[in-house]
């Protein structure tokens, strides 16, 4: 085992923090989706088990295989999308759509056309759809100010303080401060939280056209543009010349069995990846893959005790989860809105996408994100496409990223 001598404490710590942040922030969004779907706590723990196992297996496998710190997670914008679709969407339909989305990503991964396909989507429109999906979460922070002012103000202050002092790890501190504030101001009781092992539950997939168009396709799209694109950019920015093909292939293959237990698409982490790819993980880039393996092992631990994680989140007030999710996504909203504004040549089409997605409209049974892209693309073709396309390709800006 050559891997044994590569082990370092710093890499393990980086992996641990990455997992902790995933459970602190993005998991809150998943809980909002679960609350919207009105499912039982045992079903919730099956979901958490599935996303954790998916991230664990793909993260360990890819990191060991490629010797690169590949941090995987579940699709954060994808779960945000879920929140808007439940409870109109049935669990079985959701699982069917997860499988379809995984198949789309697999096909793109195997064919090696990731970069080409990403280039086809006008970057402003992709960013605008992300901003539109995430927008409600940001606004939710401030509507909580009206319903539970003490908790909201406290968490807002904690967010500002920790974001200023510990920008990297603020989510972990925010989670802890938030729990304290929830107990103090909202009378939340943690007595019901106990050690509880996961009980995975099998869900029968069901395919419908509506779920395919309003969940599967937008899910594949936001996973590719909101997770794989920035995730790959972070890896490449850290000096790893890794190809997208094995990562997309493995992540989507792992997604499939996990989907049957309620796990949403497994993707490359964007929020936490940078923690494990930099110098903090290990001075030697060749040994940072240990951080990826470590994060996978911590995910396994999380999977084992997913019952306890669910109990913790369900014993906290709904506003707490909304605040945590919203504050965790502030950075992502900011970078996506900035990406929209940066694409000056198709600004109006992007704004239309944003408006349609943020409106939460549903038309012919299809969700707002789908229509956002449809209307945005129509507006793009009507307004911005030049009849003569010689030479000047659309300039790609910074990826529309979920960033810390």
């Amino acid at each position: 085992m050559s891997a044994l001598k590569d082990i370092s404490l710093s890499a393990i710590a980086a992996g641990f923090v990455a997992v902790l942040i995933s459970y602190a922030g993005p998991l809150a969004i998943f809980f909002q989706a679960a609350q919207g779907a009105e499912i039982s706590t045992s079903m919730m723990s099956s979901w958490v088990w599935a996303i954790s196992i998916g991230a664990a297996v793909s993260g360990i496998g890819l990191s060991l295989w490629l010797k690169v710190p590949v941090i995987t997670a579940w699709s954060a914008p994808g779960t945000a999308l879920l929140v808007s679709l439940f409870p109109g969407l049935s669990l079985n339909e959701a699982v069917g759509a997860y499988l379809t989305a995984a198949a789309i990503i697999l096909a793109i991964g195997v064919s090696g056309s990731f970069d080409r396909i990403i280039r086809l989507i006008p970057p402003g429109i992709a960013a605008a759809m992300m901003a539109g999906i995430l927008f409600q979460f940001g606004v939710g922070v401030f509507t909580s100010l009206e319903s539970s002012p003490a908790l909201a103000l406290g968490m807002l202050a904690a967010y500002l303080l920790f974001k200023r002092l510990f920008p990297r790890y603020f989510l972990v501190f925010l989670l802890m401060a938030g729990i304290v504030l929830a107990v103090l101001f909202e009378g939340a009781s943690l007595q019901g939280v106990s050690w509880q092992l996961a009980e995975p539950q099998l869900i029968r997939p069901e395919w419908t056209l509506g779920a395919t168009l309003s969940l599967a396709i937008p899910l594949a799209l936001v996973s590719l543009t909101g997770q794989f694109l920035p995730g790959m950019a972070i890896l490449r920015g850290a000096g790893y010349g890794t190809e997208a093909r094995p990562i997309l292939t493995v992540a989507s293959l792992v997604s499939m069995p996990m989907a049957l237990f309620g796990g949403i698409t497994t993707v490359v982490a964007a929020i936490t990846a940078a923690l494990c790819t930099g110098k903090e993980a290990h001075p030697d880039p060749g040994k940072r893959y240990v951080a990826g393996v470590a994060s996978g092992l911590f995910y396994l631990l999380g999977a084992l005790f997913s019952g306890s994680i669910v109990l913790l989140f369900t014993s906290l007030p709904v506003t707490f989860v909304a605040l945590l999710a919203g504050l965790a996504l502030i950075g992502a909203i900011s970078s996506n809105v900035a990406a929209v504004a940066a694409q000056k040549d198709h600004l109006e089409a992007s704004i239309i996408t944003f408006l349609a997605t943020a409106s939460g409209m549903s038309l012919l049974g299809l969700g707002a994100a789908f229509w956002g892209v449809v209307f945005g693309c129509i507006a793009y073709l009507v307004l911005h496409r030049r009849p003569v396309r010689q030479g000047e390709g659309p300039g790609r800006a910074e990826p529309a990223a979920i960033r810390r």
Partner: protein
Amino acid sequence: MKHIEKGVSLRRAPGDFLRDLNADNASAGLVAGIFGLSAGVIHISAGTAAGLDSAFIMIWVISYLMINGLFGLFMPAYYRLPLPMANSIPGALLFAAVIPVVGLEAALGATLIAGFIALVAGLSGVMSTVMRLIPMPIVMGMIGGVLLSFGLNMVRPLENAMLPAAIMILSFFLSARLIRKVPPLFVSMAVGIGYLMFTGVDFSGIQATVRFPEFIVPEFTLAAFLAYGLPLAIILVGMETPAGVGLVKGMGYKEVPANAITAVGGLGTMISSFFNLHSTCIAAPMTGICSSPEAGERDKRWVAAVIAGAIFVVCAPFYGYVVSLIEATPGYFIAIIAGLALIRVITSSLAIAFSGRKHEMGALFAFLIAASGIQILEIGSSFWALVLGVMISLVFETKDFEFAKGKQAVA
């Protein structure tokens, strides 16, 4: 008065007007005037959405056209620059939203104070100081958040009135792309009215009325000032004037009377407050039309602004006709027209807020807070958006502030 810039001459203006008049500036002036008239639709939809009485909305819009039009005759004629005057659209939306909360007289009292602040800002030349205090991206983030609901309301009719909504929106964008000279807003409205006639909407109740601005005495309350007067003053001084001045400068005019535009706008706003109107200021979109190269030779573009002002004054008393026309239409019609009229304002405010890479976080918080529409201590979200936006920006983006520039090297 030493900060107020000197103009050319008012006495010779009528003669020079005839001398400089040509097809280019006449057509640009016509388009700007029509654009300004159609802006009344925003007042009507905002007022209706806020539950205001339709009779009040009418005298509001009539005052807007009459008072702003008179100032719009004077400013370009005196300075010989394309400086059309109109009212602040974000201000109009705030005004409509705040009336049910604080009452009309109190809102107008806040308008009077806001106008006075603008007058003082212009007379004393403190414009630049105010600009430093509240960074433009944060103001624009707030505006974007306030206006966002109009954009969302434009999209929502697609759910239950898909066909008319789709053809109105599509015709707007197709005409924006294909027919440059006709305002897309008018094409969209014509298409919408055509659809309504075709499906048999009853227009028989429409009647032409003649009305004039009505006098009213404002009242002063602190709540109205905080929720509306202060944001309005900031909009007038910190947003409308710089936007208009920037536009004119951008079109190649070297000497632009920034202080006079602020002061005259302030004086006009003070007068406005006695006539159910919320502001008088330079109008950025109309300024764009009047000062653009399409208005012909640069030295003669001022004529376009004068024509726009004249259209306002002449059309004002008959605006009731438009109001009753609009009342006969279903709700989505106005929602879509208002959204389309504002989409460029929303787009440019978001672009200004987020493309400068400065005060991004403050702008985002201002945007989200304004969009959330929360009310704390009876004070509206636009105020909190500015306060929290600036505070957050002070903490996180200290180096983006003008005053920090001297001390810190560019990162």
